[in-house]
Each structure stands twice: as C-alpha cells, then as structure tokens.
C-alpha cells in the first residue's frame, strides 16, 4: 500500500506532469473559445506548430545553456545574422544550398563559441557576454545586408532591381509533407529536439552540462572539463540559432536584419514555463517541448479569436505567471 501511494505521489509531482497541467489548461481554454470551430481543425494545429517551430529550435539551445547555469540573450540576433547570410549565399550568390547551410551553421556556432569562450575563459557573466554578442551580431547582420532585407529583388549598381527566382531549398524548407499535414520546419524542430535529447541524456557532455549547472565548483573538483563544457553549451545554442535563421529566411523568402527581435525572451519563457530551473542543474528537453506547445497554443488561441493587442499582452503575462505558480504550488 505504501509502495502504491509512493508511486502515485511520485507521478503526481513529476516535472512533466506539472508542465502538462499548464498545457492542459490552455487546451481547455482553446476548446471553450474555439472561434467558430477553427480550433478543431487540424490545419490550425499544423499552423501553430509551424509558427512556433523557429522559437522552439531556439529554445532547444536555450535549454542547454540554462541547464548549464547560464543564459543566452544573443539568440535573436544570431538568427537574424544567419538568415541574412543564408539569403545572401543562396539568392544573391547562387551558392550551392548545402554549402550555404554548412556555412551558416558555422557562422552561428562560431558566435556561440565566442560567447562561451568569454564566459568560460574570461569569467564574464553569461548575460553580459551574450548581451555583447546580441548587439554585435545585430550590427554584423545590418552591415552584411546594408540595412536592407536580402530578397529576390537584387539591386544593381545603377540602383535598379533585377528579380531572381526563389531558390529551391527555400521552397523545400517551406513545404508541407505527410499529406500536407505537417511542415518541414516542424520536422526540423523535432530533429533538433532529438539531437538535444541525445546530447543531454546519452552523451557524457550532457551529464557534464547538468553537473556544472548544479554545482560548478564540485564539478570542477570531480574532474569535469568546465570550460569546454560551457563552450559546448553556447556553441550548440549558436548552432540552433543558425538552424532557426535558415528556417526563418526560407519561410519569409528573405533575410531580414531586423528579424528575431525579442525572440530570446520568448525562448527563455518557453524553457521556464516548461519547468527547467533558471538556477541550472535541472530540466529536460521534453519540458521545453511542453513549454513551446503551451506558448504556441496560447498565441494561436488569441490569434484565431482576433483578440486585440492590448488584451493579448495582458493575458499572456497573466498566463505565464499562472503556469509557473501552478508548478510551484504542487511541490
């Protein structure tokens, strides 16, 4: 009997269950305010997944960084930089798409590694280092793009424009598969989730990330390579930013140097709502998935009901607090 009670108690208090509670509440709200049945159509859920996938990819990297005890404010800017570079490579330069993808991933990873190096080697606070990278990467994005969106309208030397075709890879990434029921960007998001899970749970470096998040000094004394682990965490965050930037560019058919503003806050909110602790050392990529879905459904429900901007912001703030309190109250 005691054993049964313990198992039951354990299930009720598990982080995943608490995170699911918030998502369930959002779902019930969606059922109640279904906007003439729009909420019951699969297309609405598919569109929600598409819209939230770019944020979700950023949140994968953010999860690793937060579990390591840090924070990454530069994700939105790196997304913009890689979106601009990807558009520049594929639309303007006509570079082979796979070379362009590799190039952009290298750029994003390099940004992340630089942040990680400053944090690990020079002991700069994570939010100061990534704040600097946030500003720097945004500046590079504007410089590379000349302040303009990089699109299929290519400016000639005399100021006139020549219009080129949309690259095939843009159409591929923007397309839908499995009978038009799921978008490729959502598949990419799921792949990123899987990669994050593998890294955090199946590889030694994942355990190192949890270790330094839990107690950095104890980890160091236990022989964990603290500096390299941090660089890895931020490097992975940068890599996922590049993937998100490529998806953003493909969906918009352009590279916008202004893209990604405040995306870091959305990514952090998704991680936190999912239940990963900002103190580090605890959390899971599946909690982040629940956080992504919670915020995604919240935004979609507000959108299909055409809720005004003022009420949207108030409701979003209130529900974020409610979701976090819901989790704490059950401990």
């Amino acid at each position, binding site marked *: 009997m005691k054993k049964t009670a313990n198992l039951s108690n354990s299930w009720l208090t598990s982080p995943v269950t608490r995170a699911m509670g918030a998502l369930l509440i959002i779902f019930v709200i969606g059922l109640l305010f279904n*906007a*003439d049945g*729009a909420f019951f*159509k699969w*297309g*609405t859920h598919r*569109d929600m997944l*598409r*819209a939230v996938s770019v944020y979700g990819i950023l949140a994968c990297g953010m999860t690793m960084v937060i579990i390591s005890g840090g*924070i990454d*404010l530069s994700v939105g800017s790196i997304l913009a930089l890689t979106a601009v570079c990807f558009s520049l490579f594929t639309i303007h330069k006509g570079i082979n798409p796979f070379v362009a993808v590799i190039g952009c991933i290298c750029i994003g990873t390099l940004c992340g590694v630089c942040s990680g190096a400053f944090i690990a080697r020079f002991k700069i606070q994570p*939010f100061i280092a990534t*704040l600097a990278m*946030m*500003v720097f990467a945004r500046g590079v994005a504007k410089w590379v793009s000349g*302040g*303009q*969106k990089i*699109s*299929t*309208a290519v*400016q000639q030397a005399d*100021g*006139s*424009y020549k*219009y080129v075709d949309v690259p095939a890879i843009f159409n591929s990434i*923007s397309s*839908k598969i499995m009978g038009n029921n799921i978008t490729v960007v959502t598949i990419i998001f799921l792949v990123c989730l899987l990669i994050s899970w593998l890294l955090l749970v199946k590889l030694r470096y994942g355990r190192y990330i949890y270790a330094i998040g839990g107690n950095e000094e104890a980890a160091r004394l236990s022989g964990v390579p603290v500096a390299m682990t941090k660089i890895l965490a931020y490097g992975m965050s940068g890599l996922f930013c590049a993937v998100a930037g490529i998806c*953003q560019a493909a*969906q*918009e*058919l352009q590279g*916008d140097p*202004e*893209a990604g*503003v*405040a995306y*870091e*806050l959305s990514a*952090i909110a998704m991680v936190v709502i999912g239940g990963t602790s*900002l*103190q580090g050392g605890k959390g899971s990529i599946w909690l982040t998935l629940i956080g992504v879905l919670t915020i995604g459904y919240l*935004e*979609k429900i507000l*959108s*299909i009901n*055409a809720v*005004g*901007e003022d009420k949207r912001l108030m409701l979003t703030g209130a529900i974020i607090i409610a979701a976090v309190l819901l989790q704490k109250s059950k401990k």
Partner: protein
Amino acid sequence: MKKLFLLIMFSAVLILAGCAKKTPQTTAPGQPGAAETKAKWIIGMSQCNLGEPYRVQQNADVKMAAEQHPEIEVVFKDAQNDTLRQQAQMEEFISAGVNLIIISPKEAAPLTPVVATAIDKGIPVIILDRKVVGDKYTCFVGADNTKIGKAAGKWIVEKLGGKGKVVELRGLMTTPPAQERHAGFREAIKGSNGIEIIFDVDMKWLEPNARKEMESALARFPQIDLVYAHNDAGAHGAYLAAQAAGREKDIIFVGIDALQQEGQAYVKQGLLSVSFEYPTGGKEAVEAAMEILNGKTVPKDITIKSRIFTKENIDAGGEWLSE
C-alpha cells in the same frame, strides 16, 4: 537568497535586453577641415528608424539626390525608433551648426519643440513624411496616408463590385500612418454595405506576424475575398499563408508602400494584385533644401503624388493616382 538572486538576474535580463536595443549609434558630423574643403553646406538628416525598409530607402533616396550636388554634404543620424534619442540627435545638429536639417520625426508632439529651437537659431527645417504640431517649420515634404488609404478603399470597392469579405491587417495602431491608412480605407468603403470586415488585427508592420494572423483568419473563415494590409510586407505574409493553404488564387491581396524591392516586386511576380505607392520624398526634400540654401522661397507644404501599381501597369511604371 537564491530566489532573490533569480529575481535580480531575471529583472536584469529584461532591463538589459531593453537597453541593448538602444546602444548608441551616432555618426559624428564630418570633420571640420574636410567639410570646409569638400562641401559648401552641411545638411543634417534626422531619421526616426532605419529598422524599417521604407526609411532605409528614404535615406538612400536622400543620399542619391545629394550626390548630384557636390556643394552639399549630408550627415545621417538614426534614432532607432526612440523619440528621446531623436531629440538628442536634433540638438547635436543644432549645436554643430549645420546649415539645414531634414527630419522625419518619429512622433509629432515630442519633436515639435526641438524643431522650433532649430528655427529660432536660424536653421531651416524640412519636415519629411511625418508632421510636427503647428506650423513652426520651413517646409513639409510628404505624401498623404489618408488619401492613399482612401484610394485603396475605392479600388477595393470597385474590384469587389461592392460586395465581399475582407481581412484588414493593420500596421501598428499607435502610429499615425497606420491610423490614417485605416481611417482612409474605412471612409472609402463606408457607403458599400456589401463589404464586410470579417477579421481585423494588428500585425505591427511585420511579415511573420501577418502570416500568423492570416493563418488564423483562413482557419476561421471558409470564404475570404480580399486582404487589405497597411504595408506590402504584411500583404506578402498574408499571401504566403494563403499559398500554404492553397487558397491564394481565390483572394486579392492589397498592399501599400510599393518599394521597388518589395511591393513592386510582389506585383510584378503576381503575388499582390495592387500596391499603392507611398513615396519617400527623399529626392524632393533635397531639391527643396537646395532652393532654401540658395536663398529662394519654397512652398510651406509640398505634397508628393502617389502611383498605383497593378499587374496591368507595372511594366509601364505604374499609374498616377487622381486627386
């Protein structure tokens, strides 16, 4: 203790994230020595926000026009969508003693006093595309958003034959351009009872937002005849959403601004049915500046005409809107 640290850190994140966007990006006036040998007059260009493609183009138009006049040098400053910063930059121009100022104010009321200060100091001020309160300025150059919204509304009434279901994607309702494009449009369709606005949301000028909102409209309404977006990026985002839903051929997409690389490109590619030009006025502002600097009189208000771009007339350079 740990919770306090968390609270402080999270607050710091929010504060710093906000501060980060306002990192100073001031361009110093040209070196006095270089200016003296190179240009006869210095013009200060105070731009409210280079984060918008329209304003990047506006600055580019000013620069292109200025290059035709070797005797002038233009110094550009970007307020990054920050009213207080634009005030400070205006004060920098005044202190530097520029010969003339061109300003595209972010907001009317907060920039009015500093424009008046410039006038008091004998520096002519050309107001570009957005206005200030009152008439203490040298010359206004710009187009008329309400008129453009009205023209769009008339075109829509005619295109739909006075009947249809319309989605309106607003720009950013705290800004005068969006308010005027909305007001002009609503006024133009007022007499047509058959036109129904079934979905009306704010997409904040951004294409990703427009796409999301349009996805919601498509999920909710089986029939949508037309989308009126306050800018071309919004119309394009709506088009992409409709295309993904396989409904882009049943819907007419209307945008405003008609930049060469955006609205005109979309019309040429057949994505939008029409785009209404909202000219930057950069060239006209420089021409007015030359008149002023050469001691000539210019009109108090110069309203620039707009063109309408459709599939039929895009290759001929569009068609002027009638008054």
